[in-house]
C-alpha cells in the first residue's frame, strides 16, 4: 500500500457514489428505535420508486441529535442537508417520495438550529456522514493520509512536537497535556512499548466515546497508529466497555479492513513501521477507567489500581512503558497532524485548546451530542443549544464530570467551559457528560445517587474508599429519611475530606465531589431535612 493506492481507492469510491445520498443514523440510540428496519425500508422504497440510479441509502454513525431520533438526512437535493426527525419504519416511502417532489407531513429539522449552528466539529466531523463499516468511505474523505505523511515525512520527535504545540489536553477528564505524556513515553527506555486507548466510558450520562467509536472507528485507529509511531510502540490495545456491543463490532470490522489493506500490521505504507491493535472488552467495572486499573484489566486481572509512581509512561502494561489516552484524545490527532498544531491551538482558550464533545442529557429540550470550542459559556450550551428545561421549568443545575464531578448551580451558567473554570466551581470537565437538572430535582437525592454508585464501584483495595463511601451513603440515607442532625452533617463533611485526601486512586479521591458541590451550593436542601439535635452540644436538657 502506497499513497497512490490510497488515492486510487478514494477516487474509485467517489466515482461510484450516486447523486443523492440518504443517510440513516445507525448508532445505538437510533438503532433502539429500529433504525435497521428504517434503512431496509428506505432501500426497498428506492427500488420500488425506480430511483436506483440516482439514490443511495447509506448507513452512517451518530448524527448527534439523539433526542429527535431516529434521524434520516438527505444530501444532494438542496444546498443544505434535509434532516427528517422522529422517523418510523413506515415513513420510508414518503421520505423517498419527497425526492420526486411529493410533499410530506414528516417532521423536518432546521439545519440552522443553534444545536447545529454553534458546533465546531473536529472529532465528530465525519460522524453521521461516512459509513463506519466501510474503510473506503473513510479513505475517500482523506483518511489515513495523515498516517502516511507522518510515516514518510516526519520524525517521531516532530510528531510529539506538533501535538505539544497543539496544546491538546487529555480528554478523559483530568486534562493532562497530551504532548508531554507522549514525550515521556517516547523518552522512556525499553524495546517494547504499548499504546492503550481508554474506551471504558463509565461515567453515567456520557456517551461521547461510544458515538465516536460507532461513527468513525478508523479515526481512532489512525490516531493510535500515529501515536504508536511517535512513541515507538508496535502494539496497541483498544479497551472498550462490554455495554457497547455495536462499537465493538464496528471496531472489529475496522481493524479487519485496515489489516486487509496493509494500513495496520507490519510494514505499514512500505516503511519499517509495524503496528497491531487488539480489542480488549471490559466487563463492567467503573474503576477500570482509571489508568492503572485499566492496565490490570487488559492483563486479564481484577481491575484494581496501584499507587503511582511509577507512572504508566515508565512502567505500565506488562511492566513496559505505556501510552494511555482517551478515545477523544486519539480522535483529535489526525486533524492536528493534517492542519498543524498551531491551527488547533487557535481554537479554545489560553489554557484549554481545541474542542470538546459533550453529551447533553437530562431535563433538557434538545438532548444529544455536541462538539463546541473550549471556553464557550455554559449558558450557550444549556439554554441556546439545549433549549433549556422542558415543560416551562427552570434549569437548576448542570452536573458535569459524572460521579467525579459536581453540580454547577444556575447562577454560574455564564462560566466559560474549560478545565480551570470548572475546577474552580468544584466540578471537573470530566469525560464530557453534562446532565441538566430542573427545579424538580432534589439535590440531596442526586448526591446519594452518586455516592451509591461510587460505593458499588469501589474496588475495595483501599479502606478510605471502600469503607468511606459506604459510610457516606449511610449518612445521606439518614439525612433523606429525616433522621439526621447537624452532627451527622458535620460528620459527613469530615468524611468527605478524609476520603478525598487519603484514597488511593481517582475514584475515591473524587467520590466526595458530588456531595461537596451540592453542599456548597444547595446547603439549604440538606439543612431542611435535618432534625433538632436533642443530645448534642447546646441542646436544652429535657426532663
Amino acid at each position, binding site marked *: 500500500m502506497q499513497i497512490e493506492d490510497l488515492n486510487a481507492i478514494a477516487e474509485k469510491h467517489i466515482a461510484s457514489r450516486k447523486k443523492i445520498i440518504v443517510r440513516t443514523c445507525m448508532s*445505538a*440510540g437510533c*438503532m*433502539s*428505535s429500529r433504525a435497521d428496519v428504517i434503512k431496509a425500508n428506505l432501500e426497498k422504497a428506492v427500488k420500488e420508486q425506480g430511483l436506483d440510479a440516482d439514490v443511495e441509502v447509506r448507513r452512517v454513525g451518530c448524527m448527534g441529535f*439523539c*433526542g429527535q*431520533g431516529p434521524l434520516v438526512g438527505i444530501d444532494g437535493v438542496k444546498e443544505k442537508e434535509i434532516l427528517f426527525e422522529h422517523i418510523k419504519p413506515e415513513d420510508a416511502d414518503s421520505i423517498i417520495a419527497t425526492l420526486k417532489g411529493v410533499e410530506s407531513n414528516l417532521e423536518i429539522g432546521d439545519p440552522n438550529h443553534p444545536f447545529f449552528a454553534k458546533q465546531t466539529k473536529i472529532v465528530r466531523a465525519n460522524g453521521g456522514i461516512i459509513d463506519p463499516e466501510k474503510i473506503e468511505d473513510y479513505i475517500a474523505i482523506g483518511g489515513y493520509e495523515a498516517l502516511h505523511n507522518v510515516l514518510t515525512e516526519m520524525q517521531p520527535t516532530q510528531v510529539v512536537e506538533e501535538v505539544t504545540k497543539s496544546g491538546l489536553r487529555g480528554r478523559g477528564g483530568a486534562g493532562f497535556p497530551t504532548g508531554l505524556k507522549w514525550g515521556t513515553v517516547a523518552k522512556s527506555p525499553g524495546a517494547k512499548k504499548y499504546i492503550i486507548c481508554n474506551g471504558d*466510558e*463509565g*461515567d*453515567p*450520562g*456520557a*456517551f461521547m466515546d*461510544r458515538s465516536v467509536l460507532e461513527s468513525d472507528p478508523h479515526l481512532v485507529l489512525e490516531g493510535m497508529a500515529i501515536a504508536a509511531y511517535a512513541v515507538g510502540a508496535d502494539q496497541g490495545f483498544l479497551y472498550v*466497555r*462490554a*455495554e*457497547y456491543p455495536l462499537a465493538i463490532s464496528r471496531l472489529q470490522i475496522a481493524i479487519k479492513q485496515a489489516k486487509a489493506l496493509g494500513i495496520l500490521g507490519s510494514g505499514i505504507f512500505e516503511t519499517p513501521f509495524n503496528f497491531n491493535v487488539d480489542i*480488549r*472488552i*471490559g*466487563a*463492567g*467495572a*467503573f474503576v477500570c477507567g482509571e489508568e492503572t486499573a485499566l492496565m490490570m*484489566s*487488559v*492483563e*486479564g*486481572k*481484577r*481491575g484494581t489500581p496501584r499507587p503511582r509512581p511509577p507512572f504508566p509512561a515508565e512502567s505500565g502494561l506488562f511492566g513496559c512503558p505505556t501510552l494511555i489516552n482517551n478515545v477523544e484524545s486519539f480522535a483529535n490527532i489526525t486533524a492536528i497532524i493534517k492542519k498543524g498544531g498551531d491551527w488547533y491551538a487557535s481554537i479554545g482558550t489560553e489554557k484549554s485548546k481545541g474542542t470538546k464533545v459533550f*453529551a447533553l*442529557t*437530562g*431535563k433538557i429540550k434538545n*438532548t*444529544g*451530542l455536541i462538539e463546541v470550542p473550549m471556553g464557550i459559556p455554559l449558558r450557550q450550551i444549556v439554554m441556546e443549544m439545549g433549549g433549556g428545561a422542558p415543560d416551562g421549568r427552570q434549569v437548576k443545575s448542570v*452536573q458535569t464530570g*459524572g460521579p467525579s464531578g459536581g453540580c454547577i448551580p444556575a447562577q454560574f451558567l455564564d462560566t466559560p467551559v474549560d478545565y480551570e473554570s470548572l475546577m474552580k466551581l468544584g466540578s471537573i470537565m470530566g469525560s464530557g*457528560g453534562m*446532565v441538566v*437538572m430542573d427545579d424538580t*430535582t432534589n439535590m440531596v437525592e*442526586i448526591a446519594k*445517587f*452518586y455516592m451509591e*454508585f461510587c460505593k458499588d*464501584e469501589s*474496588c475495595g483495595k483501599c479502606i478510605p474508599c471502600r469503607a468511606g463511601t459506604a459510610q457516606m451513603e449511610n449518612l445521606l440515607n439518614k439525612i433523606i429519611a429525616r433522621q439526621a442532625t447537624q452532627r451527622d452533617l458535620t460528620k459527613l463533611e469530615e468524611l468527605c475530606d478524609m476520603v478525598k485526601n487519603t484514597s488511593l486512586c481517582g475514584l475515591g479521591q473524587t467520590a466526595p465531589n458530588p456531595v461537596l458541590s451540592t453542599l456548597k451550593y444547595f446547603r439549604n436542601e440538606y439543612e431542611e431535612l435535618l432534625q433538632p439535635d436533642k443530645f448534642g452540644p447546646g441542646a436544652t436538657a429535657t426532663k
Partner: protein
Amino acid sequence: MRLPTHFMSAILTTAEKPPVKPAADPKHASGDKRFKILEVHMKKLQFKQDALIEVLHKAQELFGYLEDDVLLFVAHHLKLPPSRVYGVATFYHFFTLKPQGEHTCVVCMGTACYVKGADKVVAAIEKFAKIKPGETTPDNKLSLLTARCIGACGIAPAVTYDGQVAAKQSPDDALAKVKSWM
C-alpha cells in the same frame, strides 16, 4: 491430566451441587459441545493468560452464566489458579454466576435515565414481579437487572429487553412489555 478439584471446596461454595467430576483433557466429561467451542476459542487466543476476560465473555455467551464447572475448565486450560479465575469472574459486574431467567429486563440507571425517572420504572417492575434488581422470579421467567449506563442517554430512560434497547420508557411501557412475557 485431571482438574484440580481439591481447590474447589476451598474457594467455591457449592453447597447444593455435588463436586465436579474430574475431566480428561481436552474434552469435558459431560460431553457438552459448548466446552469444545470454548476450548477452540481459547486456542485461538493461544491460551494466553491475559485473555482471561475474553475467554470468560465467550463462556458466558455460550452458557448464559459462569458455572463453577466452566470456571474450573477455563482455569485448567489457561493454567491459572482457580482463585484467580473466580476472583476475576466475581470482580466484574458483567459476569454472573447465577443462571438468568428466560427473559431479562435491564433498566439503565445512569444519571440521565435516573433524572428522567428510571427509578420509577424499576419500582413498577419490582412491585409487579415481586423481585428486586439482580433477582429472578421463582418461575424462572424474568430477571430484573439494572445497568450503570448503557450510553443511550439521548433516549433516556432506556430499558434493554432481552438485548434490545427500547427508548423513552415509562413505567407503564415497561410493565406492558414485562407482562407480555409472563
